């Protein structure tokens, strides 16, 4: 796990067995910065969905990096497939199961941002700390 003052990150191999570690990471950071339990649950779900999609689509051959940043009492969560990212294959819809993922992510975080050029999903949750 990498760390600076308000930034933390974890990188996992593109293997479903490691996604639980991402959930644990996101949960620990969320509690540390004072997110509500509901927000933490939502962040864990979004992180899981994004990782699962990258793994299923084979878009994260170099692994998946999950970053958290504390910005003005808000926790920013970014999930980025790394390595040989193939932008055309990782959208939030258009593949089996992907539309369900999109509905989930947008249902939980209507302001979620997805950059198809680099495959980064970014969501923001309120944090009491910071």
């Amino acid at each position, binding site marked *: 796990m990498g760390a600076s003052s308000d930034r933390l990150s974890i990188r996992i191999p593109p293997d479903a067995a490691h*996604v*639980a570690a991402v959930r644990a990471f996101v949960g620990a950071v969320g509690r540390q910065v004072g997110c509500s339990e509901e927000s933490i*649950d939502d962040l*864990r*779900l979004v992180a*899981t969905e994004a990782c*699962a999609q990258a793994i299923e689509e084979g878009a994260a051959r170099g692994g998946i990096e999950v970053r958290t940043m504390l910005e003005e009492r808000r926790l920013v969560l970014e999930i980025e497939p790394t390595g040989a990212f193939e932008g055309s294959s990782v959208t939030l819809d258009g593949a089996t199961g992907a539309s*369900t993922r999109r*509905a*989930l992510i947008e249902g939980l975080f209507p302001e979620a941002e997805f950059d198809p050029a680099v495959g980064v999903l970014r969501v923001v949750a309120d944090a009491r700390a910071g």
Partner: protein
Amino acid sequence: MDVIVQTRAQGPWTIVEVAGELDLHTSPPLRDHVLELIDSGTDHLALDLAGVEFMDSSSLGSLVMCLKRMREHDGRLVLAGVAGTPMKVLNLTGLDRVFELAPSTAELPSD
């Protein structure tokens, strides 16, 4: 984190108790176990999800597969004790209207 699965009988129902976190990695073994039960003749099956703390859309896919298989066998599949994040996932995807839900295994339909 592994998922713990235990199977027991309760009247006409076969109950599969599940505990842990269901995701892309952990749901396939559960799916395979349930499909095996259905294919071996179980026609009243309740998945007790009260001990499931987390469930993602991959797990939903596994549950939908089980439901389809059960319907092919003219059987009945009930999700019992769904709460928290798993219930939120069901609600957001609209699958709460597709699955038959029971508050707990103590309140399964009697027929």
